[in-house]
């Protein structure tokens, strides 16, 4: 199939960017979206032009590096799918495709489609950990955790930190990301000790890093390639209230 791409090109953080149009020819429906871009880039390189810069690493949907807003939807909008796992069979011959970077004040653009997501790391440093002596490997059943609690924590831990929640949010809020970390640790015995400080510090850092405030649009849940539920945001809110008790 042949496609028309409108891709955000921006030389550097301070440069002014704009959408440029490219033709992707003879695209196979078995290619992933990133492989399609690889081919476009090869043509650009052959023509002596600067290839499109985009983030990627594992290309199997687990690292959270790939980050593109495709036709207005982070990761292209296919349920529980990262860009690297999006295949060209979801497109049709002759389609026009708009490709833009995550847009948020907290995610400054490095180049083209690559944004700096360090702000999420700063939120993690504010409390996304437990301070316990790890010592040797613990005895398997020494610390009993009921199955529903373990499942709940695992659901929250599915977050790969890609930032699609921020990209989709009209307020550029990082609440879904932050809440997944807060909720995961709040329900586990290892995390309970620091729960009060954690929720305060992490939400405070969210604000100081330039993310907006959640106003319950729930765009994040739909955009999340890991299906993180907004019930974790409710849990964060509950944890926040509990931190005053």
């Amino acid at each position: 199939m042949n496609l028309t791409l409108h891709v955000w090109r921006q030389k550097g953080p301070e440069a002014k960017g704009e959408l440029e149009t490219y033709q992707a020819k003879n695209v196979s429906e078995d290619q992933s979206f990133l492989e399609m871009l690889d081919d476009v880039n090869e043509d650009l390189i052959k023509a002596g032009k600067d290839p499109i810069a985009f983030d990627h690493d594992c290309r199997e949907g687990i690292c959270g590096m790939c980050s593109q807003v495709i036709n207005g939807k982070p990761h292209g909008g296919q349920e529980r799918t990262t860009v690297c796992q999006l295949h060209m069979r979801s497109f049709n011959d002759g389609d026009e495709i708009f490709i833009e970077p995550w847009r948020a004040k907290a995610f400054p653009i490095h180049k083209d489609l690559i944004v700096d997501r360090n702000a999420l790391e700063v939120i993690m440093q504010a409390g996304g950990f437990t301070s316990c002596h790890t010592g040797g490997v613990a005895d398997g059943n020494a610390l009993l955790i009921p199955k529903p609690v373990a499942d709940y924590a695992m659901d929250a831990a599915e977050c790969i930190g890609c930032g699609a929640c921020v990209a989709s949010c009209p307020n550029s809020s990082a609440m879904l990301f932050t809440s997944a970390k807060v909720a995961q640790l709040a329900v586990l015995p290892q995390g309970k000790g620091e729960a009060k400080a954690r929720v305060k510090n992490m939400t405070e850092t969210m604000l100081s890093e330039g993310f907006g405030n959640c106003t319950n649009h729930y765009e994040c849940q739909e955009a999340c390639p890991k299906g993180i539920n907004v019930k974790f945001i409710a849990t964060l809110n509950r944890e926040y209230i509990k931190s005053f008790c």
Partner: protein
Amino acid sequence: MHLITSSVGRKLLMAVTGMMLVGFITVHLLGNLSIFAGSEAINIYAEKLHSLGPIVWIFRLIMLGLFAVHIALGIQLTMENSSASPEAYAIKARLKTTFAAESMIYTGLILLAFLLYHLLHFTVQVVHTDAVATLQPLVNGRLNVFAMVGNSFNSAFVSIAYVVAMCALFLHLSHGLQSFIQTLGLNNGPSQDKVSAIGKLVAIFFGLAYIAIPLAFLFHIVKI
């Protein structure tokens, strides 16, 4: 301190003040619906209310405080949120959010404008003074609030203004009610869509019930 500076703390204050305002509009609606119970009912209700004296003023001060907190935080949060997302996408799909959610600040500001107009109209009584004049003469020794309301709403302009404002109330509540549940952390996942649906139904109820009052007079379903 944390409560009034942090992101989640301020959202909680928005939610709690918003819900107290919902408490107010519920009581207010019950009072207003008494126009459907004959011309005397609302006059008696108004007389009772005014006889409370200083309690009315304490109540008014509390309302002023609630509105002040809700409005100030609403404007502040909205400004922070728009500065957090300075660059718009060339194309942005709407995945789950609603028109009501996106227009909270606008429906809020319409409600604020309406509130001022409404107070000038029925409380301070300095606009539409010809209708206010119908408060006199007294009926059975009471102010004729019923006629004042009725004569005001016989004007299509006044009725339409009230209907528009109540549409804004409907939109504000259709997002606000479920938002309150989420902000207070009372959502467990599966409850999400149900809470949203119930919130919308309650919002429709409030909207229709309030709109019924001006329309009832405008179309002479209730006669003065």
